[in-house]
């Protein structure tokens, strides 16, 4: 039974094939056999043209679909590329910065002058990093430099053929004929040219420098606020733990003395002695607190006089150079300068091993300059973590928009150079 069924099926499909063949081919043969033109054949032609038109219309629709598809595909590909491209923008900008940085270092090695940077920080999340990368005017400055460098970078290549020629010509001209060398110095000129152009192109644009300045001011302002807060807490603590506690203790002793007054005059007298000692200590501490806020001697004697007094009490032989005549700097500037000197002299006396130091106080066009130098063993800590107090001083100076440079190589000398801007 199965074999017959299989055969039957085969026959059936064959049959169907034949049937289809005959139905599709028959009209074509009929077309070829079409006789001479007549009214009847005209109708046929029109009908065929109509059919062909329908065919073409379908083809056009299909073509439209294909166009649409390919367009969509291209858009998708372009979109994907843009997305990937956008994702790599921050990385690319960082790379550009690295290359520009390498060129800056390279130029600095030649000229010995730093080319400043004023980049915006590129934060972690893509959205922000993208914004920072695109907004940073330095990005465009760097790209401009890169484009230009594409051209003038060839200067380095120019130097190569100059060498053999230069050796030959200058060898004769300068070496033998004792004339001024002509060709080899040209290589130096080329390097100078490269450095000069790079310096001009790599300098951050004014807008970026302005942004950098704003950032700097925001930082120092935050520092000033923090320093002010720390100062207030310190004063509160000093008053609370020192002066106030001593006064309470003193009052307590007087109270006890009053109680003992009649029964035990000797004990009463002893208590009164204690109370007086505490009154004196309270006064001493109060003086310390006041001095920490604003040294009264600054008010009395001016900066140079106050620094002379500091020097006299420092235990070192200190030469103080400065001029007290003329207008005085603002109180905050004077106080900062005073504390710089106080801290520097304390450190010098405590750690440097020096017995001599020098303080220079000078008015400059833009403000006040204080220089403290000792002939000690150097190696002063700048971080201020180990209670060196320099950190506090640094904050105080930054709050006034000043700068501080500390140079303390091992073996000495230690030099602290502070500039505090103010108007005269």
């Amino acid at each position, binding site marked *: 039974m199965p074999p017959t069924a299989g055969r039957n099926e085969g026959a059936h499909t064959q049959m169907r094939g034949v049937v289809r063949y005959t139905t599709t081919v028959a009209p074509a043969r009929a077309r070829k056999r079409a006789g001479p033109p007549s009214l009847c054949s005209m109708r046929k032609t029109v009908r065929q043209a109509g059919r062909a038109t329908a065919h073409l219309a379908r083809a056009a629709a299909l073509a439209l679909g294909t166009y649409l598809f390919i367009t969509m595909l291209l858009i998708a590909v372009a979109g994907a590329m843009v997305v990937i491209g956008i994702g790599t923008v921050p990385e690319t900008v960082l790379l550009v910065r690295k290359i520009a940085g390498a060129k800056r270092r390279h130029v600095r090695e030649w000229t010995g002058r730093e080319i400043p940077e004023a980049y915006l920080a590129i934060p972690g999340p893509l959205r922000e990093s993208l914004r920072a990368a695109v907004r940073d005017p330095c990005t465009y400055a760097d790209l401009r430099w890169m484009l230009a460098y594409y051209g003038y970078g060839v200067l380095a290549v120019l130097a190569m053929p100059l060498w053999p020629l230069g050796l030959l010509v200058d060898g004769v001209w300068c070496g033998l004929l004792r004339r001024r060398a002509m060709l080899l110095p040209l290589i130096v000129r080329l390097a100078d040219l490269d450095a000069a152009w790079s310096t001009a192109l790599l300098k951050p644009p004014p807008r970026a420098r302005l942004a950098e300045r704003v950032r700097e001011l925001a930082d120092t302002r935050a520092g000033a606020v923090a320093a002010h807060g720390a100062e207030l807490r310190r004063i509160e603590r000093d008053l*609370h*733990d020192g002066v*106030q*506690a001593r006064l*309470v203790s003193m009052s*307590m002793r007087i*109270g*006890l003395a*009053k109680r003992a007054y009649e029964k035990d005059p000797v004990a009463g007298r002893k208590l009164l002695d204690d109370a007086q000692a505490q009154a004196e200590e309270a006064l001493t501490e109060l003086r310390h607190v006041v001095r920490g806020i604003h040294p009264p001697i600054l008010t009395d004697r001016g900066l140079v006089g106050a620094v002379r007094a500091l020097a006299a009490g420092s235990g070192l032989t200190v030469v103080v150079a400065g001029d007290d005549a003329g207008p005085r700097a603002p109180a905050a500037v004077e106080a900062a300068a005073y504390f710089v000197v106080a801290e520097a002299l304390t450190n010098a006396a405590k750690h440097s091993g020096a017995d001599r130091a020098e303080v220079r106080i000078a008015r400059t066009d833009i403000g006040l300059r204080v220089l403290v130098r000792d002939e000690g063993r150097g190696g002063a800590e700048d971080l201020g973590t180990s209670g060196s107090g320099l950190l506090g001083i640094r904050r105080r100076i930054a709050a006034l928009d000043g700068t501080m440079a500390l140079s303390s190589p091992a073996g000495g000398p230690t030099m602290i150079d502070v500039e505090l801007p103010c108007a005269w």
Partner: protein
Amino acid sequence: MRVVIAEDNALLREGLLLLLTSAGHEVVAVATSGPEVLPALLEHRPDVAVLDVRMPPGFRDEGLLAALAARAEIPGLPVLVLSQYVEQAYAAELLGGGASGIGYLLKDRVGRVDEFLEALDRVAAGGTALDPEVITELLTRRRDSPLDALTPRERQVLELMAEGHDNTTIASTLVITERSVHKHIGNVFAKLDLPPSDSGHRRVVAVLTYLNNT
């Protein structure tokens, strides 16, 4: 009386020790930092504790927190809190668990030795001792109130009463008879619309509650 002291400042600690022993009290333990206070109180269960508010390690309100914690463990433990400045919020926290056996004084008051010792006794006996500054602040904080209807004398009586003094002390402080003190108190309670109450600390609670809430 057996006393526990908590004070980090050596000068004041030594002074308090001198003062308390000279008055015949026994100092059973001395705590010098915040974390030491509660164990000392739980171990010795003193008749009264004298605690500084601000102590190491944080130099914030360690003494106050220890006092509250100790009173949660030992209900009614008499606690006299000393501070270099008074803070209304601290007074409210201390009195939150009842005014019985609570003292809150400025350290300055210790100098008035007799008054300080009297306040200590009062607190140990379950009374109240509040610093005049706390009361003054409470009274001046309020503007609108029936307090304005009080005569100056009645106001003085109210202040002394709120500080935790009894009629005898009020009478001797103001140099008047106890009978007139009694009369003034009656007037104050009537004007403030408080239920009359004669027993010491219930009276203080009523007054303080009034001052704190209205």
